């Protein structure tokens, strides 16, 4: 699962290719225009490498952090069918993380460095995972709508220019589409179930509505553009286009279950564009910068996993390193 790459103003300014050799740059851009894939050993502009690495790394982090809110419900899933489906799903997400870290490593940064940057806050992950999964209905909504949003994003990105990332995404999309089916099935059971089940589903939809709108990043008129990234097929669709595609596909599927969205202004206009109330982009920024309800908790769990598991990794990698008995 993953949200859109958010290009900041500063990033856009840094997109400078003036020190690249013009012939090489031209040949590189021609290859992309012809629809060829760029492979790890190929020449690429420094900015291409930097932006791709950042994007794939964020995506990988999103997978492993995204496993946390759902992971805590594996032990609580209400029957065998849901339990087996959920554990398989969360395992898939970790597997996607592993696949994506490998894809990112082809650009010259190790998994260890990436995990370190996750913990020290240098690199980000999707905002959507900084919200809590409060009830079982959240698991249904995450499985259906967050995975649904991720698929919109990832199917588009799988048409990008970097070979290893595209191949990873193709496999990921295949698995995500399975999660989507399980998520939909779960949502339908709750929507057609008892009063209590409908109530927790409605409550979950109410809480996830805004984070889902945030998922694709700020509106185009607010975000820094980069023609270059579009030309290099690092970014393939605008945030607004992806968001619109998502709303178009999923809003009707929720409404037909007689479940509502907490937004009186949500509607599709005659031109096919969805309209909605301002989902508070200030909140989006706050959460990205660490102020969301679960940012601290998510990183704390990752930090625990990193630290508690250090002796295992060290014993496998550098068994000769001496063990220092802690002083206290």
């Amino acid at each position, binding site marked *: 699962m993953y949200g859109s790459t958010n290009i900041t103003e500063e990033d856009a300014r840094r997109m400078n290719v003036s020190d690249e050799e013009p012939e090489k740059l031209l040949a590189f851009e021609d290859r992309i225009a012809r629809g060829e894939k760029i492979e790890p050993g190929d020449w690429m502009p420094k900015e291409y490498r930097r932006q791709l690495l950042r994007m794939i790394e964020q995506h990988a982090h999103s997978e492993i952090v995204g*496993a946390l809110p759902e992971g805590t419900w594996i032990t609580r899933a209400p*029957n065998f069918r849901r339990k087996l489906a959920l554990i398989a799903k969360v395992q898939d997400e*970790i597997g996607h993380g592993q696949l994506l870290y490998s894809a990112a490593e082809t650009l010259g940064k190790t998994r260890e460095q990436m995990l370190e940057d996750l913990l020290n806050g240098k690199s980000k992950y999707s905002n959507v995972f900084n919200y809590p999964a409060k009830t079982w209905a959240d698991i249904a909504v995450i499985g259906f709508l967050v995975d649904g949003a991720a698929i919109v994003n990832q199917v588009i990105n799988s048409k990008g220019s970097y070979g290893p990332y595209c191949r990873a995404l193709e496999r990921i999309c295949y698995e995500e589409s399975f999660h989507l089916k399980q998520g939909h099935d779960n949502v339908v059971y709750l929507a057609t179930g008892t009063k209590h089940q409908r109530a927790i589903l409605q409550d979950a939809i109410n809480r996830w509505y805004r984070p889902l709108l945030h998922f694709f990043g700020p509106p185009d008129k607010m975000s820094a553009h980069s023609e270059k990234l579009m030309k290099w097929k690092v970014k393939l669709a605008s945030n607004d286009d992806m968001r619109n595609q998502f709303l178009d596909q999923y809003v009707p599927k929720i409404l037909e279950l007689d479940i509502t969205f907490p937004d009186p202004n949500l509607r599709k206009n005659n031109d096919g564009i969805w309209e909605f109330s301002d989902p508070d982009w200030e909140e989006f920024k706050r959460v990205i910068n660490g102020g969301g309800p679960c940012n601290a908790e998510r990183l704390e769990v990752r930090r625990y996993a990193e630290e508690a598991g250090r002796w295992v*990794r060290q014993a*496998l990698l550098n068994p000769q390193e001496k063990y220092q008995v802690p002083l206290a």
Partner: protein
Amino acid sequence: MNNNAVKELLYKMADDALIIGHRNSEWTGIGPMLEEDLAFSSIAQDKIGHALALYTILHDVLGEPHPDQLGFMRKEKDFHCCQYVEQPIGEYDFSLMRQFLFDNAELLRYEALTRSSFEPLAQLARKAKGEIKYHVMHGDTFMKQLGNGSEESQARLQSALNNSWHLALGIFENSEFEKELIQEGIFTGEEELKRKWLEKITPTLEAANLKLPATEENKIVYGGRKGSHSEFLTPLLNEMTEVVRTDIDAEW
């Protein structure tokens, strides 16, 4: 065939699988490396799948309640898992040691059951042992790697082994039907299983630079098979049934 003897065997195996599956699944997302998240999560899936398959035999063949009822609606005292599987995951060394010790026993148990006179169980055992083989491969490999890894990893495994030993021996607590199970060719019995298990794990532990602790009979943790459990099972079951209990009549 003595139905009560078969039921008792199926219940304890299913409950072991469900509870160890629950514990192993707790590693999803927090393992020492992503590969271990994946390994523990895969193993957990298989275990929960085995539990479901065993409860399904109990339901379909022996007239017991639906598997979801058996897994999610029984009281603590009706569970027949050994106390070893109930223990919290602790640190990775404890969980890995348990995975190694438990799954070696589990593979031998299922191998023996492929020849069971109770055909539904023999059929399941033939399928499941192919999966458990990989669990054992995981446990054996990591024992050897970490036992021969760093000073710290060796020390941690030795201490995990010492702390686990008498709990692990509790896996082989005899049931009241041992004689019937053996006589009717349903299962070769816990004593035979324990003997084979010791033969199997001893060379692996030696290769892992680990010493087998001395067994003190009076310290072996029994009781689980008769419904007497550690303080950890009730909270585990409460967690497992948290969602179901919010609406008992609902279909989930």
